[in-house]
């Protein structure tokens, strides 16, 4: 070793220490930690100094102390502009949750369908699926959101000339209106019977399949539908429907899906389905062809092969990347503000932030909540992944 520097020869203890792998490892880690914590401390200190310079305090009491004063057009819980900023944030969070759940369900459905079709031997189906994937993956999400919103707002008719489906469903550029079920006294019996019917059908099906038998779908449907119908008649039709009616400027009554919600959910689902489709395709291709050939040899149909042999094995490769797609979708839903969908970012991170001037607190909370949602989703997906994992011998 002739690499000793002059400084090192002046301190004969140092080079010997430096040559020791363990010492070197600890030293490198110490330096890294120092840099990380130093940067963190510098940032925190900077925030503190700036807060002091601006005479600001850090605190969250504004959330419940001040009335929000603004209205929100989609509220899953009771809300008026006299409620607190906290409640407005909760309304926003629920809106984020709603659009995420709906979009995740749609994206999964579309992604699995398109991903499977991509491998179809039908040339047209495979090409169309390919087109879908490339279009969904290679367009900016923001543009898709604006496109979908623009199509609804510009091409669907004004409420006065609404597209009606059987006088109950109405498509307009102000939203999609549909009847709202009204649960009156005694409706709980119907709900209870429905729940019991579903549980019984599920249980019977499970038992039948575990014994190698079959449980036809119509038996399950009858098991649910007949008692529910009986309960409805018996309890005197306690479930009514509030049907939307056009009155004045807009439709009143019923449930409305705003153009903003529909556009955001559809765009998120479409965009993410492209990625999910590729994940699914990769997962399916990861299953050894021998498995497929064996299934075919046993006389299983193409669909049965896919459903009972290929997909269960493919899921092991699909679920981990699928988790990332779900996380990305939830976070992407924060683009909502572009079309005025009042999600968490538009309420707490938007109007509340602007009206109260609490940027640090509001942004901190928004980040913490997104982190919480993401950790929740990946926790659930990891649990599912462990359940379907290959049992280790």
């Amino acid at each position, binding site marked *: 070793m002739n690499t000793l520097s002059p400084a090192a020869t002046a301190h004969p203890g140092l080079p010997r220490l430096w040559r020791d792998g363990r010492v070197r490892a600890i030293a490198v880690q*110490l330096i890294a*930690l*120092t840099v990380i*914590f*130093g940067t*963190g*401390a*510098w940032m*925190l*200190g*900077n925030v*503190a*100094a*700036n807060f002091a*310079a*601006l*005479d*600001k305090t850090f605190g969250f009491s504004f959330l419940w102390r001040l009335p929000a*004063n*603004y*209205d*929100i*057009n989609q509220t899953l819980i009771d809300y008026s*502009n006299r409620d607190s900023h906290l409640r407005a944030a909760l309304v926003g969070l629920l809106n984020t949750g709603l659009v995420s759940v709906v979009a995740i369900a749609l994206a999964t459905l579309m992604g699995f369908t398109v991903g499977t079709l991509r491998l179809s031997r039908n040339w047209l189906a495979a090409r169309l699926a390919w087109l879908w994937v490339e279009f969904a993956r290679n367009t900016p999400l923001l543009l898709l959101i604006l496109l979908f919103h623009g199509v609804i*707002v*510009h091409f669907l008719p*004004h409420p006065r000339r609404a597209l009606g489906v059987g006088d109950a469903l109405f498509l307009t*550029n*102000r939203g999609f209106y549909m009847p709202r079920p009204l649960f009156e006294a005694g409706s709980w019996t119907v709900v209870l019977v429905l729940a019991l019917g579903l549980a019984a059908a599920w249980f019977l099906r499970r038992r039948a399949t575990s014994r190698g038998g079959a449980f036809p779908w119509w038996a399950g449907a009858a098991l649910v539908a007949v008692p529910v119908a009986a309960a409805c008649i018996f309890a005197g039709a306690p479930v009514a429907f509030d049907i939307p009616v056009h*009155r*004045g*400027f*807009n439709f*009143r009554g019923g449930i409305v899906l705003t*153009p903003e919600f529909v556009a955001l959910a559809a765009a998120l689902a479409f965009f993410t389905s492209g990625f999910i489709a590729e994940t699914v395709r990769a997962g399916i291709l990861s299953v050894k062809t021998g498995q497929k050939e064996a299934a075919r040899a046993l006389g299983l149909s193409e669909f049965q092969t896919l459903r009972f042999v290929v997909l269960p094995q493919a899921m092991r490769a699909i679920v981990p990347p699928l988790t990332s797609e779900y996380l990305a979708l939830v976070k992407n839903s924060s683009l909502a*503000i*572009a079309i*005025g969908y*009042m999600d968490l970012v*538009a309420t707490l991170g*938007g*109007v509340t*932030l*602007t*009206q*109260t*001037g609490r*940027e640090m607190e509001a942004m901190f909370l928004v980040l913490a909540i997104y982190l919480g949602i993401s950790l929740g989703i990946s926790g659930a997906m990891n649990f599912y992944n462990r359940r379907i994992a290959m049992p280790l011998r």
Partner: protein
Amino acid sequence: MKTIIPILAAVLAAGTIVVSATAQGGTLDDVRKRGYLQCGTSTGLAGFSAPDDKGVWRGIDIDWCHALAAAVLGDRDKIKIKNLTGKTNYTSLRSGAIDILSRTATWTFSRDTDLQLTFVGTYFYDGQGFIVPADLGVKSAKELDGASVCATTGSTSELNVADFFRANNISYEPVPMESYTEARAAYLAKRCDAFSTDGSGLAVMRASMNDPSAHVILPEVISKEPLSLVVRQGDDQWADIARWTLNLVIAAEEMGITSRNVREMRDKATNPEIRRMLGADRLQGLESLGLGTDWAVNVIEQVGNYGEIYARNIGPGTPLNIERGLNRQWKDGGLIYSRPFR
């Protein structure tokens, strides 16, 4: 591992000490050192701040930036415009990203007190209203029960709309929009029945329609909107500079000083206030403002007086054609009133 903890503690301590000095310096010194003024304006509102067909930003809001640049740097063009939304404007001002906010900002109690802003003066007295398509047949805002109403989010507009409908006990569907441009598009697509913003904004919108007569501005004025210049709280000298530049431009109109005659007025006027204003006589306190004696001539010569600014941007004769109304000089029955230069 035991050695790590004290080291970390030392690092943390050092980190916090290093940081401490980020206190706010004088904005005037910063601007002079930088050589240009950072000016926060809107993302586009014709007549107030919008790019012309050559891409040059023009409007009343932009002219205040020019006036301030002329006052402190002697050159109206030494400005850099930052286009801010209602969501980012106050944050940008407080964080020091801009030196002045000239963006049709309404002077309100909570902004003045809780948001640590200093409102230096009102340059346009406005009030919020509604615009609706004429074929809707609506004559009063109180007939808007059940209507969908577009307003820009993060503004006082959406709060005033909420107050108005609550006070009159009628329902509506709020349709929040991120910017004026999007709100206009949504209104034209009939996503909403009415659009609500400041009266000047309504006039701008109506003027920009293919057929302005197909849209009516409803008679109700539901709020007071004193549009004002805003600076950071805590730099009194800078606030004074902005306030007195505004006063200067207003006083110039009152005294008949225009961009054309300002030099002549300085050399020939006998009125003592005009002589003090324009630097012919000594104006006590100008040194503590940190400005040179030629600041007033620079501002008026390069930007013009209040009447000139108003006329070329939004007055009768422009497509917007907004009457002076409340924004006439106090002598003519308006609210535009300069403080005396003494």
